[in-house]
């Protein structure tokens, strides 16, 4: 028995180190963007300029997974604020290895329109978050390595360095502080092509929702422009049985109240 415990103790760190950087990033993406079969949140985004001027984006976001973690997902977003985008809906079919399909519904002319979506590093609704920050970047697009281990507050983290394999990203590398216990990214630093720290992501509040640790407050700050975006998730829920039919033109035009409230 004592021998067994000793063996276990010897194996434990080996087991831990057996997780390579790519595995950690996969687990992190799973924890951050793929938990549950589906997910719902009321999202409040505050876009804050260097001078302190605030703009607000408020929406309900619904997400459903299709296949394994890192695989296909569908997103449905309904906007409450600001007034000029109220009642707009936005839908994304996210594919891991090819460009997303995106649709936008413009209520004033009752029109559903496909949107060209090639540049995933474009800003999401004018915020400091890119489309990739919202729905995740393909793990295979970067080379990952463990840079160090460090604490964020009381949480032990892996610090992973990810460098794009191609010249398709707007950063030369990214450092991610990944919580060793729940694998959520607690902090990310994006370094631009000159190697200067450009954007910083922080997970400012993590709550347990139906057993899933969930980042309910997050921020992205652009250090060069001084502009930042603060995001709060409320009414968060998992495994609520979002039907496939939601992700359709019919419901883009007439979003069902039970899902978007």
């Amino acid at each position, binding site marked *: 028995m004592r021998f067994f415990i000793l063996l276990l103790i010897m194996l434990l760190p080996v087991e831990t180190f057996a997780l390579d950087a790519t595995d950690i990033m996969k687990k992190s993406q799973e924890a951050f963007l793929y938990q549950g079969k589906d997910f719902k949140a009321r999202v409040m985004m505050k876009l804050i*300029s260097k001078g302190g001027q605030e703009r607000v984006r408020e929406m309900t976001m619904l997400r459903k997974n299709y296949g394994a973690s890192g695989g296909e997902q569908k997103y449905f977003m309904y906007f409450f604020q600001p007034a000029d985008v109220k009642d707009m809906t936005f839908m994304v079919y996210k594919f891991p290895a090819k460009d997303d399909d995106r649709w936008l519904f413009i209520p004033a002319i009752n029109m559903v329109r496909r949107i060209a979506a090639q540049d995933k590093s474009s800003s999401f609704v004018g915020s400091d978050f890119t489309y990739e920050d919202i729905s995740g970047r393909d793990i295979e697009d970067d080379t990952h390595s463990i840079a160090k281990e460090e604490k964020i507050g009381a949480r032990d983290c892996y610090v992973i360095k990810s460098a794009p394999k191609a010249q398709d990203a707007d950063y030369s590398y990214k450092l991610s502080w990944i919580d060793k216990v729940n694998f959520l990214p607690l902090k990310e630093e994006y370094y631009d092509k000159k190697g200067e720290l450009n954007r910083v992501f922080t997970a400012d509040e993590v709550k347990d929702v139906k057993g899933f640790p969930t980042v309910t407050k997050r921020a992205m700050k652009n250090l060069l422009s001084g502009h930042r975006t603060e995001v709060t998730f409320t009414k968060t829920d998992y495994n609520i049985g979002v039907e496939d039919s939601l992700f359709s033109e019919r419901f883009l035009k007439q979003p069902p109240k039970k899902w978007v409230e």
Partner: protein
Amino acid sequence: MRSRQRLAVCSQLRRSTFIVCALCSVFYALSVSYAAASETSIHGFLQGNYSADLDMSNPDGGDFKWAEERMQLKLDTNKEPFRLFFKTDAYYDHVDEKTDLEMREGYVDFTSSKWDLRIGRQVITWGVGDLVFINDVFPKDYEAFFSGRPMEYLKKGVDGIKIGVYPSSVSAEVIVIPFFEPNVYPQGNRFYMFDPMPLVTNREEREPSGSLDNTETAFRIYRDIAGFDTSVYFYKGFYRQTSMLPDSMSSPTKIDLFYPELSVYGASTQGRALDGVLSIEAGYYDSRQDENGTDPMIPNSQSKNLFGYQRQIWEDFTAGLQYYCEYMHDYSDYERNVPSGFPQENKLHQLTSVRLTQLLMHQTLKLSLFSFYSPSDGDYLLNPEIKYNFSDNIWAAIGGNIFGGGDEWSQFGQFEKNDNLYAQMRYEF
């Protein structure tokens, strides 16, 4: 004289104020009665919209194509499975010096799991074109577009019934429109336009009567095919532009303006291809009142085709290209019968468009350019615009409509003297 005008305006204002108050009371009563079990919201905007001539004054001497202050109220109340929606505008038009109310939309929805129903005034948008309409056979306001009004005013609502059916394999929409609604074209007091018979001022317009026979029907069936949103369409109704019927070809004294019968059979598809979005649309316009193409006063049957491609070139910059063509069937019959002195249309009318959009400053500043150019007619329209969001509630846009090229009767060439610079400002609540 001036004070009389002012009195008239005041009385109009009083009447409109009364109507707005009455409408608000109805809104209020509705919202109170629904408040217990439903959700009600009231939103809207205040807007100023001015468009000044760049080249020369209007035919009636005025210098503004459009000048108005407008308030829109949107009332939305939900009590599942029902929804009630009203969108009403009250405005003062400085060019025609009138105050008026306009019901933009007003309908009741009923939603079931596999089908839904919408009854009332509603905006319907079909097809995949960007300002090019083949299977979108529903009424448009081209005067709004050419006068520099916000894009939503290009579309007009129709009073009708829409039934949507959504079984798992395909979706379908049926639209029934009992009362004909024509397109709005620029008016002679504000716009210089081509008129083949300018001396005949005795004109009478006849809209199709609201009979069962004249009820328009439109049908669309659609589904995803290999990642492409694909639709098939059918429409039976009328052209929304008038045709002229003079009492005599040689020495006309009176012109009847009427809306010929039309059926449209069409299809469209749109999906991701070539690192962008590809759009294809086609339609056969069956001119039912001129099957042989021998009546020069009624449009001949045509095939209309559209190819579109849009792509994001760099961050927040998108480019869209379109090629559109109209092929006239029975062209030799048309050529034989076109009266002398009338401009002759091409067998193949072609139109290209470019749309460039750049968003800047966290998407608060939008620079855009839309242009039409017709390779067959040689005329063009340029519409550059700058829009800035001062805050979440206030935005303003300035832009221009520049026309030219072609002939004095061609689509954009005829508007050559109507170049205008417009400003739009909106406070949204």
